């Protein structure tokens, strides 16, 4: 490692350390604000939340989301990096926006996983994406009355109902062409699974786990084979 690389490495480590400090502080702040808001609003409306009913509700739906959150955290953090993951878990909409957005940005600038460049690009991407959503929602809320007929127009409903298929269609071309043979296996397995067990379509976000694991497993076998061949 030359002097320049060593300096960069030190700068990067300092940046990461500060990012974790900031990330933890803003996550805690957001947590306090989000949990405090229902009580603040309750105070304003003159009726506090019913804690018993909220606890029963948590047992009926919350546990599923807790498991889902743990899986999301383990799976998405490697894609997002440090800064990106703090921001993404604060601002939400991970599967339908933040993850594809960060992947697209790193792809465009050819940033490799685990590198400082990937960390910076991922954070820039998630921060920009979050700001765009905040601005669009704020503008939409401000213009809710004139916009309502357009957004609720029966003609445009099919378009808005299909944002996610449009996103994944475009991303499929971009990623499947990198390794068509690798993509064919999880696609075929998932298609067959959804054909034989149609009720699973309501749990597609959970099915990402086995599908992703299968693709990673196949990719690992291919990587190991290529490495062995290179060594021989």
């Amino acid at each position: 490692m030359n002097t320049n690389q060593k300096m960069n490495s030190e700068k990067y480590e300092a940046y990461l350390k500060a990012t974790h400090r900031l990330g933890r502080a803003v996550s805690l702040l957001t947590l306090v604000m989000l949990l405090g808001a229902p009580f603040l609003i309750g105070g304003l409306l003159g009726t506090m939340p019913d804690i018993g009913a909220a606890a029963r509700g948590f047992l009926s739906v919350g546990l599923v989301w807790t498991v889902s959150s743990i899986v999301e955290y383990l799976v998405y953090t490697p894609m997002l990096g440090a800064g990106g993951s703090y921001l993404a878990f604060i601002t939400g909409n991970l599967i339908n926006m933040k993850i594809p957005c960060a992947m697209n940005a790193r792809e465009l600038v050819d940033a490799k996983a685990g590198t400082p460049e990937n960390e910076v690009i991922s954070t820039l991407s998630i921060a920009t994406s979050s700001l765009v959503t905040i601005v669009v929602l704020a503008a939409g809320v401000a213009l809710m009355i004139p916009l309502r007929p357009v957004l609720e127009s029966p003609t445009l409903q099919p378009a808005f109902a299909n944002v996610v298929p449009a996103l994944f269609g475009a991303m499929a071309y971009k990623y499947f062409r990198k390794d068509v043979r690798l993509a064919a296996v999880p696609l075929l397995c998932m298609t067959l699974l959804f054909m034989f067990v149609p009720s699973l379509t309501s749990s597609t976000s959970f099915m990402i786990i086995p599908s992703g694991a299968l693709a990673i497993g196949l990719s690992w076998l291919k990587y190991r084979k290529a490495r062995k061949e290179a060594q021989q």
Partner: protein
Amino acid sequence: MSVLDQLNGSGLYLICGGIVLIIAVICVIFLVRAWRAGKALGMDTVKMKRAITSSATFSLLPSVGILLGVLALSGSLGIPWPWLRLSVIGALHYETQVASAAAEQVGITLSPEAMTTQAFSTIALLMSVCIMWGMILTTIFNRKYVKKLQGKDPEKKTGGGFGDLAMIAMFIGMVSAYLGSYLGGFVSGNGRFTFSGDWTPLLVAAVAALAMAGFTWLAEKKHWEWLDNFSIAGSMLLGMLSAVLVGH
């Protein structure tokens, strides 16, 4: 004053708008820090600008979709709370489901006629509690987890290890799950192997993929590299347009 009028009151706008504003400031801070770090590390500013531009165009259409979620929930929860929920942590598919389940627990249905102020504050609390775990996990474990992911292997830090391939594979798996669900939905959506399910998501995905192929061809063969920044948004727009044309 009706319950919905109270839920659309200026006090709620102030509370929710204030929180959204703080989150926006946090995003700006992260953006500026990452930009400065990139420059300090000697990264190409053209690349960083490109990442910002493409992310902004990429996020426009999904954000309009999220706005529809605000609209959908505003009928029963007013505008300020869904606005906050979908700007902070929320996810489109999550909010309606949890709001309905929470309403059930307080003994009402999610409708403006049935809504009471106490039901609202309870629903709001449950919506916050159910989705906060990702943020709690990042607060507690992110430092160690990210460090573990980076490892001490110098090959990983230059992007030469398996990490990059694993990330692409995970994404291929994710896209496969969604495309598989559209195919499965069409084939068995109305009964196993009846081929009478909803085919619009399939059509939309196919049109978007074809459009993406066209944009990629123009960028790679005709050297219209600038198109890369808008290719996803453009492909999505054409895919969504196909749904309007078939009217499903």
